[in-house]
């Protein structure tokens, strides 16, 4: 078993309801689990890069290109305010995409766990 020689580590005696020791190594090595990790990474890495860049574009543009950001778009509304406001919708939209993607991961995880329970 994977955790037999792990004295002192808290995970050494997994308190899994039902079965006491799960085949962690086997699951981790399975093609399905690797596919799940890949699918997650394909979403999480670009999504994180995207929101970090999108968010820091705001203080960068406001700080270093104030003339551009002060241009008026509609009435007195300027780019600075619109871009700041757009951050809220960016966050909500990205959260919605994440929830949709995560629903797929939940299914994959459930399938792979069902396989190992047999």
């Amino acid at each position, binding site marked *: 078993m994977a955790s037999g020689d792990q004295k002192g580590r808290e995970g050494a005696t997994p308190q899994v309801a039902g079965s006491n020791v799960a085949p*962690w190594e086997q699951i981790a090595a399975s093609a399905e689990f690797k596919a799940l990790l890949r699918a997650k990474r394909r979403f999480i890495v670009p999504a994180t890069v995207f929101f970090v860049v999108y968010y820091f574009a705001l203080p960068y543009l*406001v700080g270093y290109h104030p003339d551009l950001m002060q241009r008026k778009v509609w009435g007195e509304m300027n780019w600075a*305010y619109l871009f700041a406001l757009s951050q809220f919708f960016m966050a909500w939209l990205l959260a919605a995409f994440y929830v949709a993607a*995560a629903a797929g991961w939940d299914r994959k*995880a459930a399938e792979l766990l069902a396989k190992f329970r047999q």
Partner: protein
Amino acid sequence: MNTALFMFLAFVAATLVITYFSAKKSTGTSAYFAAGRRITGWQNGLAVAGDYMSAASFLGIAGMIAFNGYDGFMYSVGFLVAYLTVLIIVAEPLRNAGKYTMADVLAYRLKPRPVRAMASLSTLTVSIFYMIAQMVGAGTLVRQLLPGVSYEMAVVGVGVLMVVYVVFGGMLATTWVQIIKAVLLMSGSLFLSVLVMSKFNFSLTNFFQSVSAVTFTGPDGAPVTRNFLTPGLLFKNPLDQISLGLALVFGTAGLPHILIRFYTVPDAKTARASVVWAMILIGVFYIMTTFFGFGAASLLGPDHMKAHGGTNMAAPELARFLGGEVFFAFISAVAFATILAVVAGLTISASTSFAHDFFTNVIHHGREHRPGEEVRVARITAFVVGALAIIIAILLGPTVNVAFLVGLAFAVAASANLPVIIFSIFWKRFNTTGAVCGLAVGLVASIALILVSPDFMKQPLFPLKNPGIVSIPLGFLAAFLGAMIRREPEAEAKFAELSVRANTGLGAEKATIE
């Protein structure tokens, strides 16, 4: 009796009733620390929002927008975007692999004692500094909101109440205090925003027209007219804003009182749903800061606000102007409820970490000597933490600048906690040395940089108000280099298990059955 005081007492009475019923239900460790993991998604979403929207956001940001226009709104943006880090990177693995505290996830494959000791130290630092900031804030505000109540009385009152919630009601009572407060805060802000817009016939064009020309008395005594939609009225150095943004966006996902909320729900899926609920509420709230912040600037004007309580009183003064004394009393009571709820959330995160991480796992090697001992230690800790916070807040007095304490909390969370959370979940090679180095360097670097910043020194050695831009990379670097110093085969061997747990929820802590 004073209307504000009456409304505040009504809130206190309601929360004490909840505490009484929670105390009867809270039997057992998981019930006390994690509300039995039976909180639903929307409830926890409200509670996360309640834990997060402190007096600093409600009164502080409203005031900052009212006095500095656009730059104040930049805070609002960062506070929401921060939740993407929580949602996408931290919440679910943490729920799947942990039990009561952030350190649970670290201790999984690393040596528990050094890692928990350090994580507990950083949790206590973040919680206590943040808490003192809130209590000093409460004391100063109350003098203006509730005439006849002194600073000391307010501080003692807040301290005693938070200890009562946490000691008797545990996580369940704390959660419900957050939920009620979030509902009050959202409805108060909505009502305030609608009243503001009614002054402009609900026309955004008129509203922004008025915000674009705010007249006030300049430093030389002559009237000045400024466009409050223009950036740069508050932040002169763009790096200041970027550094603050870094601390907000990466610090939220390391705030212990937010992270422990994900242990109160049944599973990772519910944790995810609760972040989404929180993002909706927090987003709507921070968009509304536009209306009452800019509204206070254009309807009352900075001169009026300066004469009536200054920055922190912008929202209550606006309420008085728009809705009379009763609305003023309501908004004041909401502000006080806000502080109380946040302080309770911080107290429970500090005492959980001390009892679970330090007492049980560091001193007693992970074993409870007597059943219920961990909960008993947490209750005593809550009492001690409360007493300490009261004493420190009274000693500091109402005039101390507390902004740096909150900045410190976010900076420590981002520089010390987040790097080790991320590395231990995602990087197989990560080990105990890396975690201890990351936590220690992140903690020391952020505190040291704040001590030599403009908030603390007349001739600052470090030019920025927030240390994030330097201390966050330092925290990551220290964690990385520490891990590279030597290999730890045991930690690498356990990575498969942690990864399976974090990604599939297999073996995750279950909700207790009633």
